[in-house]
């Protein structure tokens, strides 16, 4: 029994043991650290039987081991409750993410976008030019003079889309953060590591 009589040597041993134990605990208790563990994430879009009240979820896990963490946002897709080209929602199934840009300078969409792989719909028609996006300017701002670059919840309800997945302007930053820091990638453009297979599941 040690009692009260700890000399410096014994105290040093206890201290070292404590530090080692603490380090062990640190490794177990820091799942959010990408340095100590690998994190893998993917999008999930639930259409919820509606064009304007679907749910886009970022799901991720560490070291390929449960639990699966997730964070969700309201999202919309299409203008009709079918997967018809131009007006219907995104066809069900898996998609690759083919590219990601922060300052996409398109004709109909701008700013932070993720381009999706092509997919056949239930009618045998190819759906192409698909994105996850919001309504914002190329520099990630809001331009009230251009409806396509200005988010509104009503008249028009900007959750409607020509078939892409749309999240609100207030949520696009959070989506981007998850993609960048929680198991997506920090890469931009459409070169390697893109395309990233199976990174969106639509149901």
């Amino acid at each position, binding site marked *: 029994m040690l*009692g*009260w009589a*700890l000399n410096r040597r014994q*105290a040093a041993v206890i*201290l070292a043991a*404590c*530090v080692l134990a*603490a380090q062990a*605990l640190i*490794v177990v208790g*820091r*799942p*959010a*650290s990408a340095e100590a563990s690998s994190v893998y994430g993917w999008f999930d879009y639930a259409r919820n*039987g509606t064009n304007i*009240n679907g*749910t886009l*979820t970022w*799901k991720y896990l560490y070291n390929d081991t449960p*639990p*699966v*963490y*997730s*964070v*969700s946002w*309201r999202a919309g897709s299409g*203008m*009709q*409750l079918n997967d*018809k080209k131009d*007006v219907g929602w995104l066809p069900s*199934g*898996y998609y*690759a993410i*083919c590219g990601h840009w922060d300052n996409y300078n*398109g*004709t*109909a*969409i701008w700013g932070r976008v993720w381009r999706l*792989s*092509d997919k*056949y719909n*239930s*009618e*045998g028609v*190819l759906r*192409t*030019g698909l994105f996850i996006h919001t309504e914002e300017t190329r520099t990630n701002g809001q331009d009230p003079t251009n*409806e*396509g670059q200005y988010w509104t*919840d009503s*008249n*028009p309800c*900007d959750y*409607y*889309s*020509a078939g892409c997945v749309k999240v609100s302007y207030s949520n696009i930053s959070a989506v981007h953060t998850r993609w960048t820091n929680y198991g997506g990638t920090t890469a931009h453009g459409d070169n390697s590591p893109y*395309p990233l*297979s*199976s990174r969106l599941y639509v149901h």
Partner: protein
Amino acid sequence: MVAECTEQDSAKQLLTRGGVSRIRSTSVKRPRAKGVSVRERLSGYKLRLKPRSTVLGLAAVVLIAGGIILGSYALVASSGHEAAGQSDGSVPAAQAEPTQESAVTEKPAVVETVVSRIKDTGELDAGLAVITVPLGADWKKPGCFYASGLKERIQLGPAAAKGMTQDAFSGQAGILLPDERHLLYHFWEQLADFPTEVPGDPIVKEGTHLSTPTIRLHDLETGEDSLLVAGARSFAWRADGMFAYAQGVDRDYRYNIPYLQRVVVQKGLNGTPEVWTKDADGYTVLEWAGEHLLVWREIMEGAGELLVFAGPNQARSIPEMGERFLGTSTDGSFVLATSGPDAGYPYIRLINLETGGEVTRLSLEGVSDPQTGAQVTTVTAAALREDKLMAAVSPADLAVFEMGKTNAGPVRLVFKEIIKYTYPGLCSGTADDLLWNEAAGRLHFVVRESSGNGELARMAVITYDLDSGECLRWVAPDEDAVVRLVTKASRPQ
């Protein structure tokens, strides 16, 4: 009862003067996180140090706590927005933002029709022809051709080739040439299985050659089926024999690579092809309107513009961007367009093809499904003859307008009737592909049907007589198929 509307009026102003829209909002809290706190992690490690070791003990505690706090920082910091679920990821969906509904509070002052008496028929209406495509992009068996008066369906496509008898980019189904003997149609020949992107399935590289679009000709008398153009899609045939199509820069569609084309025009089946567009782009040839060729240019993100060609490299666009093409008038003088998702309430716009000027525009604000009262949100197709415009709308199915005219031409659209079709399995608001039967005064269109799980089960052809109200339904016998209406040569007739 008929309500009239000038270009200054919207349908809602006519229908609901003085009406008040009702807005209801609800909010739902985000699910609370199950993140593990620092206190919980420390609870199993009580240090028992005597007073003489207090300094050392405290130092150790500080080190441990500091390490744990640092290590757990990200988890704790984000716990306010996250939920840890099971391995299948079954986390309750967050509904963080309020939903919004609006309803018209007054009854519309137009005719509301719900058609529930629909007779099945085994015969297509006189003069009608369709091409079917097996459901679910099944490449193993190409589709068939059906026509009124035809004893047996005709199998399309080259023998033993895997493919699909439609344009995968949604060009028109087929054109019966003026001789009533030859059918122009699409065949996409399969080169490789289309990637599923399902985890564990083979990963297919971008740019992989997946299919070859072709335009083929079927002789309905001899049964001969021949290739006309390989690496081409979408076509228009004018009654005088001018043949237009979009020729791919690449012969094949390659995975995730935009399929760029040039518009080509030739006289008859064997004429010399003449390129009408200098640049390659996402063109779809729509139809001839007199001397003009109408072409849709699709832009990467789903938007597009309507181009009117008067000859090689002589194109002008019909503004406005963001609109979608609906159709042309019978005489080819007018174009119909509708708004995209960014316009709020949808509208129909009548445009003079010659000048590009707007003749009239009618907002569909206040036009609602006669059964559910839900506001019409989209217009997907339209057919315009001399005095009447039929539009496929969703929800509901058809909106009927009359064309108000003066000696100078059409000046306004008169909203007359909203029609809803209903029978078990019919997916509401999916009417599409409108086609007038001029001789019989009947309207043909396709609808989508579901087997109950919400997924597409088949398409049906509806024939509707506007005068008598008689409604007939035709489905392809012995196959669950997508159905596309075959058209005839464009003007001049």
